[in-house]
């Protein structure tokens, strides 16, 4: 926030510094130390990959803007996120042009990371090199020859300890002393293989000369840090051919359980308190349209936005734990093969798994996928995962078929619905994998970082930021859409003494009636059609909408009443409405259709494209409709 005001009042007064480095080098940790973890997420124009801009915190004497970029191994990008890093270096940012580059390299990986320093120096902007993981070097009994590194790299080199923040003052000083750029940034030519090899050999030599063992000069190369040893030991279990998959399913079940059940009481609390305040308003204010709008439109709309907050926060906290501890990279490696066959990567697993709780946080988690194609396929099939909002609908519909049958039969049918959805998801991914042309060959080299204890406060701050981002960026769309649905079911008003319910005579109800020629082939009359349309507010609304239309007393609370009323319902010609065929058709429809405006809103936000969001909405609902019709017609033919 304060960044905006600062830019407006005094444009381009502060120098702009970019933070660049390979993945896992500790860039974000340094960023948080410098800015006090304050940032504004920025999208590069035409891209959904984010980078952060922040101002140096008061603990830094030197005032500047800092731009954090996605990790990159080189200036020759191999994926969308790396491309953004390279573009960001030459981009005219709102806060000004980049005048200095801080290159973050891992002190235990100098042989692999110093090549990037050489490449970046060809840009001809002043650079400072920050060597991180000093704590790991110390633990391994090693010491860096800073003088040699400074000489060889011909720029200031600063040691930094991400745990204690040691080295921040020296960096502050170096940045304050840094010269202004002598010329504009030059985009260097790409390197030949020979030049690359030379640079890598140079880096390996420099690493050998600069990193010395304090304890024992001779045993230096054989000396492995305790953290590396711990990692080898843990990997022996976590990547074991048999135990590895077991741990994987255990850890993922834990993550899923926390977003599914841990979030539930909080979501009920939000739902309940918004519902109660709406009721309170309606009972204490006169019954004007404005009262109804505030209570059922506005307050309910805010409720619809905030109800996702617990899941989003818990999911990002869990992913943060897995990511920073080092396990997420392993999990992605373990599950990579089956997902790769469908055009995704192991990184897609967590978003897809989250889809079984709710598509909204799931699509947000897919933001961590670096390949655009990977992200597109994953986001497309996330709504096919059986989210928790489908359960009340499945419960009601399965109740109609299995009301007198033993419970295991309904359970089996429910399992079939979950598996069916997975199969459809797999097929959809396979089709997309063929349809979407690979814009460039995807190169996947996954680094398995050392296991480190996660830093809880950082993860807490990041998850809160993610959650706030969601509320601010997707919230308005969800609010507007849900108020729209409310308006469609509220207007035009039914006369006081009308025999029909308000829902029936509203625009939404009318639309359901107009659409009956379309819903009839799937065995649904206009009343079911209205229920299906209402479900766009959220799938579970289907149940309460049916309760209203079929005027079941006590509404959805009265399960017995709902089941008997629905069972007794008939077509105008007296045929029963809810047959096995029509219920199966509805089940299939709910299994596949994208009936959730919040998902639609988040799909638009995350893909950055209306084409994707609308295309997904149309494709999934059309597929659901066609399969539902096919199901109904087939079963009906056999007299079910």
């Amino acid at each position, binding site marked *: 926030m304060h960044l905006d005001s600062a830019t407006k009042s005094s444009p381009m007064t502060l120098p702009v510094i970019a933070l660049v480095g390979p993945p896992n080098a500790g860039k974000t940790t340094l960023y948080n130390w410098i800015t006090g973890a304050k940032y504004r997420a920025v999208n590069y124009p035409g891209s959904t990959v984010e980078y952060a801009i922040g101002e140096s915190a008061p603990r830094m004497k030197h005032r500047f803007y800092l731009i954090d970029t996605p990790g990159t191994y080189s200036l*020759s990008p191999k994926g969308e996120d790396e491309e953004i890093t390279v573009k960001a270096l030459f981009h005219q940012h709102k806060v000004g042009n980049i005048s200095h580059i801080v290159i973050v390299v891992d002190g235990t990986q100098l042989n692999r990371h110093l090549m990037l320093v050489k490449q970046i120096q060809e840009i001809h902007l002043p650079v400072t090199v920050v060597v991180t993981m000093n704590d790991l070097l110390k633990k391994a009994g090693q010491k860096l020859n800073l003088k040699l590194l400074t000489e060889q790299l011909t720029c200031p080199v600063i040691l930094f300890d991400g745990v204690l923040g040691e080295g921040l003052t020296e960096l502050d000083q170096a940045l304050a002393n840094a010269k202004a750029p002598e010329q504009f940034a030059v985009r260097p030519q790409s390197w030949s293989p020979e030049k690359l090899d030379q640079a890598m050999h140079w880096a390996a030599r420099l690493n050998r000369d600069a990193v010395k063992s304090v304890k024992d000069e001779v045993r230096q190369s054989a000396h492995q840090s305790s953290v590396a040893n711990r990692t080898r030991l843990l990997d022996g279990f976590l*990547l074991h051919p048999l135990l590895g998959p077991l741990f994987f399913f255990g850890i993922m079940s834990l993550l899923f359980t926390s977003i599914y059940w841990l979030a539930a009481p909080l979501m009920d609390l939000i739902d309940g308190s918004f519902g109660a305040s709406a009721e309170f308003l309606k009972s204490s204010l006169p019954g004007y349209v404005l009262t109804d709008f505030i209570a059922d439109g506005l307050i309910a709309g805010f409720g619809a936005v905030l109800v996702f907050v617990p899941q989003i926060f818990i999911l990002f906290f869990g992913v943060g734990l897995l990511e920073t501890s080092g396990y997420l990279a392993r999990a992605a490696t373990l599950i990579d093969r089956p997902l790769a066959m469908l055009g995704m990567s192991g990184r897609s697993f967590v978003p897809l798994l989250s889809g079984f709780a709710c598509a909204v946080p799931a699509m947000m988690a897919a933001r961590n996928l670096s390949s655009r194609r990977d992200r597109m396929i994953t986001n497309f099939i996330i709504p096919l995962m059986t989210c928790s909002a489908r359960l009340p609908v499945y419960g009601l519909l399965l109740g109609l078929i299995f009301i007198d049958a033993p419970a295991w039969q309904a359970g089996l049918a429910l399992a079939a619905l979950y598996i069916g959805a997975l199969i459809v998801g797999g097929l959809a991914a396979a089709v997309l994998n063929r349809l979407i042309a690979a814009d460039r060959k995807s190169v996947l080299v996954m680094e398995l970082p050392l296991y480190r204890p996660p830093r809880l406060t950082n993860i807490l701050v990041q998850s809160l930021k993610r959650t706030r981002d969601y509320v601010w960026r997707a919230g308005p769309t969800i609010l507007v859409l849900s108020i729209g649905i409310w308006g469609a079911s509220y207007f035009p008003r039914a006369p006081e003494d009308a025999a029909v319910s308000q829902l029936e005579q509203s625009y939404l109800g009318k639309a359901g009636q107009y659409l009956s020629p379309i819903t009839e082939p799937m065995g649904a009359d206009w009343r079911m059609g209205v229920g299906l349309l209402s479900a766009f507010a959220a799938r579970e609304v289907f149940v309460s909408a049916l309760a209203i239309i079929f005027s079941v007393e006590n509404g959805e609370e009265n399960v017995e009443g709902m089941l008997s009323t629905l069972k007794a319902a008939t077509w105008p010609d007296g045929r029963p409405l809810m047959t096995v065929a029509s219920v199966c058709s509805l089940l299939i429809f709910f299994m596949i259709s994208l009936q959730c405006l919040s998902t639609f809103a988040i799909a638009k936000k995350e893909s950055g494209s209306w084409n994707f969001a609308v295309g997904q909405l149309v494709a999934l609902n059309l597929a659901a409709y066609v399969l539902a019709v096919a199901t109904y017609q087939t079963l009906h033919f056999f007299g079910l």
Partner: protein
Amino acid sequence: MSLSLDTTEANPRISWTIDSLSGDALIVERLREVGLFPGAEISIVRRMPLGGPVVVRTGDVDLALRSQEAQCIWIQRQKVPR
């Protein structure tokens, strides 16, 4: 004689030297950039189940490569395990 990394059995105790890189230019460039260049010492730590990625170690770092990337790396035996 050099062997393809893609078809060589995993055994963390055996050290290999990268002999040459061949194949898609983009992949080969990325392999060089992450430290898998001709002359680098590596060991093949493990293979993931069901034909999943192979984990190789160079220095202190473990890297997971898919078959597509592993196919580009040709290696030579360095020393016999004790």
